[in-house]
């Protein structure tokens, strides 16, 4: 099944994001090997050059490491992965607040609403 892509951003940045999410949520675990560029390109139905480019950016960020004889592995630096995870979470919260403010909620009202939703559960 081809990966869903948005139309407004370069494809490699979207692949980057998708692989990042997979690393953060443990589908690709720290220290384990990643699928090959060709396999992943086929899975995503994208050009292998594009997939390669996403991998290159991930390597540059340090989240994946290329070893001489065992291909690409996810970094074992848990701190780095946690950091990436936190960045993703903060981005979610930012976007949530932005959307709520658009609806006319103040920060206080948002907090009250959140607490009441949690209490109901």
């Amino acid at each position, binding site marked *: 099944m*081809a990966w869903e892509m*948005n139309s407004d*951003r*370069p494809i490699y940045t979207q692949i980057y*994001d998708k692989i990042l999410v997979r690393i953060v949520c443990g589908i690709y675990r720290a220290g384990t090997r990643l699928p090959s560029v060709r396999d992943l390109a086929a899975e995503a139905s994208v050009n*292998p*050059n594009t997939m390669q480019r996403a991998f290159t950016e991930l390597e540059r960020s340090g989240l994946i490491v290329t070893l001489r004889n065992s291909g690409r592995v996810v970094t074992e630096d848990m701190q780095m992965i946690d950091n990436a995870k936190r960045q993703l979470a903060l981005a979610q919260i930012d976007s949530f607040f932005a959307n709520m403010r658009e609806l006319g909620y103040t920060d206080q009202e948002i907090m009250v609403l959140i607490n009441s939703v949690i209490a109901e559960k």
Partner: protein
Amino acid sequence: MNNNNENPMATQQDNNSTSAYPQQENSSVYMQQSASTSPYVPQENDSAYPQQTGTPSVYPQPENSTPLYAQKESGTAPYTQQNQMYGGNSVPATPLLQLNDLCKRYPGMGSYMSVFHMNLVIPRGRIIGLLGPNGCGKSTLIKMINGLLTPTCGNVLINGLNPCAATKKVISYLPERTYLDNSMKVSQMVGYFADFYEDFSTEKAFQMLGALGISTEARLKTLSKGTKEKVQLILVMSRHADLYILDEPIAGVDPAARDYILRTIITNYNPGSTILLSTHLISDIENILDDVIFMKNGSLMLYTSVDAIRSQMGKSVDTYFREVYAC
């Protein structure tokens, strides 16, 4: 929350300008604003005349990363670099395909040029979409590359050679219409191709036929139009060519088979070869393309990478195409 982003990362992009990855785009969208220059009358001094920009600038600038299947760009002159695919440093860097000032005028068309002074250099290791509205000269261009039409002026060089038997050996061509013998069985057709082309892989062909559920004992005349197209595409993709030229490869094929065919193209194409495909189904193939060529009234309008269009225009190639060619 009214914004249902199915992709959690999308929100990050929307609201956080400091994105997690570097936004580097060296490639420039090279735009040939030639809409005002009518192709009817060649004018050497026309400022929008494609030749004046020089061939190298027509090709998208190298990007920062090293593409897996493309040779690393080095130096300032594109495509004079060593060809890594063939290992040796003694191999001269001849572009895979080069068009020099190529024109085609059909008899009886007055002074109208179907292809108008095209200059183009196509390297190895890319998947390139040849896009443009109906009648803009895509098929004419493709036929000249394959030696089916003779250029009115200019020339086509494939590995440095004019179209001839030797170039047909390295080009696998899917024409716009079927040319297979209807009375033959699919398996006979495979045998025919295997006899005809040294680089044909019978095994690959049967494997793809099996995956698409096409009976090898069926005669071609009993197959539907779409199935016939699939057979033809399979035959073409089963070769191990340097250049695959596919004229409208997926037009008559259902969406599920389309996905399979695109996957086949991705997984089967060998790193040293280039695929040039013309199509109107841009959104379907956009994700597998490296570069796009836009043609208009027989002229080259734009030759750039998909990433460059997306990052500089902020829209997909499909959307961009609709804007550029809006009627």
